[in-house]
């Protein structure tokens, strides 16, 4: 462990500040400049009048100029408050945090699985280039990448939940089974299958090309010329080098992962952040939308940061100072 790592981390965090700021401006801008607004939900209530809506606009602070609303929001963010939901009056952070575990569980498991399987497939494909296995794996990955996730999900539900009745079609637990790991696993299988398939597909492609590139490097030839065994060349010499760009990619891929989770959560009624977002969207619940967007952005930045640190630890060429 290098002592200057801390300084490196601090600098990387400082570098992220403009990013967070940019995300907030763009997020806020898009949401508030677009037509329509949260008050439209009230219109659907029979007893609402135009006067009621005008009054609500004032009492919810939506009548203020955009920049005033923005700076108010920034100010409360800086004070540590993520604001309150328009329609529940609940602290936004509470709302997000209570959904987080489900999302982390789904995303974390699928990512871990995908990275494991994908890397393995990629390495095998790269080592056995042009073999039948490589050909099948490449074609299979392409095919998997061409499925619309939700369609694949629907098909999975149709086959496994409706026709065969092997697995539950959605949710996280059956009733009264909260905390039952076995029950959770049953519910996890289908969404995991759908999410992981796509991830494995793209991940195996990345891993394959990264390994392909690395095993053609001079230092791998050097390692072979030393008379090292094939596995040692692969895992000790090629692997760390091939994995460096993959780690960076994992950081960059985080947003895509959220996108996938959003779709999977919608199809499988998984009580995570993605569904929270979709629900908030239909009501244009600004504070929740901003909260989720900022939260994801922060997670993405954090993910990239962790990736960078991991790379710095593996790759001695990264300058820490």
């Amino acid at each position: 462990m290098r002592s200057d790592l801390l300084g490196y981390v601090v600098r990387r965090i400082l570098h992220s500040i403009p990013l967070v700021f940019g995300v907030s401006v763009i997020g806020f801008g898009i949401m508030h400049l677009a037509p329509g607004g949260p008050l439209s939900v009230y219109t659907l209530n029979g007893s609402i009048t135009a006067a009621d809506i005008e009054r609500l606009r004032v009492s919810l602070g939506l009548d203020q100029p955009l920049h005033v609303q923005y700076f108010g929001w920034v100010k409360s963010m800086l004070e540590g408050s993520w604001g309150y939901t328009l329609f529940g009056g609940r602290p936004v952070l509470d709302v997000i945090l209570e959904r987080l575990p489900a999302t982390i569980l789904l995303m974390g498991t699928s990512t871990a699985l995908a990275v494991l399987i994908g890397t393995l497939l990629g390495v095998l494909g790269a080592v056995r280039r042009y073999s039948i296995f490589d050909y099948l794996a490449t074609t299979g990955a392409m095919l998997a990448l061409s499925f619309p996730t939700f369609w694949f999900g629907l098909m999975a539900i149709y086959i496994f939940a409706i026709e065969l009745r092997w697995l539950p079609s959605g949710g996280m637990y059956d009733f009264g089974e909260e905390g039952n790991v076995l029950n959770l696993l049953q519910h996890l299988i289908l969404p995991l299958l759908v999410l992981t398939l796509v991830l494995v597909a793209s991940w195996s492609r990345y891993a394959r090309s990264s390994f392909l590139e690395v095993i053609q490097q001079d230092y791998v030839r050097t390692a072979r010329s030393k008379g090292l065994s094939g596995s040692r060349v692969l895992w000790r010499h090629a692997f760390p080098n091939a994995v460096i760009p993959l780690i960076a990619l994992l950081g960059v891929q985080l947003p895509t992962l959220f996108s996938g989770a959003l779709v999977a959560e919608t199809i499988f009624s998984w009580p995570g952040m993605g569904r929270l977002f979709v629900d908030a969207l239909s009501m244009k619940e600004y504070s929740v939308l901003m909260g989720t967007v900022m939260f994801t952005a922060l997670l993405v930045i954090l993910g990239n940061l962790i990736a960078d640190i991991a790379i710095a630890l593996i790759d001695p060429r990264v300058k820490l100072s």
Partner: protein
Amino acid sequence: MTDAAIATRPNNRSYASLTLRRFLKHRMGVLGAVVVVLLCFSALFAQFLAPHDPLLINTSQRFLPLFASWEFPLGTDDLGRDTLSRLLFGGQVSLMVGVVAMLATMVTGTLVGLAAGYYGGVVDNLLMRLVDTLLCFPQVFLLLVIAAFVPPTILSISLIIGLTSWMEVSRIVRAQVSTIKEMDYVQASRGYGASNWRIMLVELMPNILAPVLVAATLKVATAVLMETYISFLGYGVQPPMASWGNMLTNAQGYFDTVPFLAILPGILITLTVMGFNFLGDGLRDAFDARLKMDL
């Protein structure tokens, strides 16, 4: 590549023919190209191929099953419209969205990447920070947020998809440009007095065309997918116009009773995306292939 290899090489006339030859060897790429051509053909000539008006509602014969009659080979939907005709016209819409979105993506991405890569410095810094920032948003988030607030038309949907997916392209272009602008032939053209515009257009653009073209085919694929995602979540192309995405959404309600209403557009989407993906993959290999002869 070696001199010897060049000497023995048959006289190729241009990069294009060289690339084409290489591409034709790529089996999956050719398959992709065939699929894409067929799909484009069917979309372009949907008017002539479709046996029925895709919008004609005839509720007296709804939910006709697959292969039940010659009149409706692929059956009918919940309003008695001919599925085959709707699939053909839906393809038109889906592909149109794919292509227009791709164009928007490529134009934006290339311009931004070119400016950032060529001018460097502050311009580069600002543009790439913007790109970083936008990349912090999961694309589906961005897409939905904008789609949820903008009235959906083919054009607006295409533009929304295009404007939320140009960032990677700009990164690719920027990386290419900043490599190529240091190449000696670019230096040489500066050396004989070429202007910035000329360098960008004549020297840089043709040389980044290959990755841009590859990215473009892959972007059509993702754009077609994205349209279905938006439609699936209810913000896509609006009826009565059919798109594969909204056909799928519509079919959801009859998913367990008339599953083929969902299966058919799903298969076509997969086929399209796969076609473009394979095509792009083949092109990438055709453009990139370096002969690693002199080890």
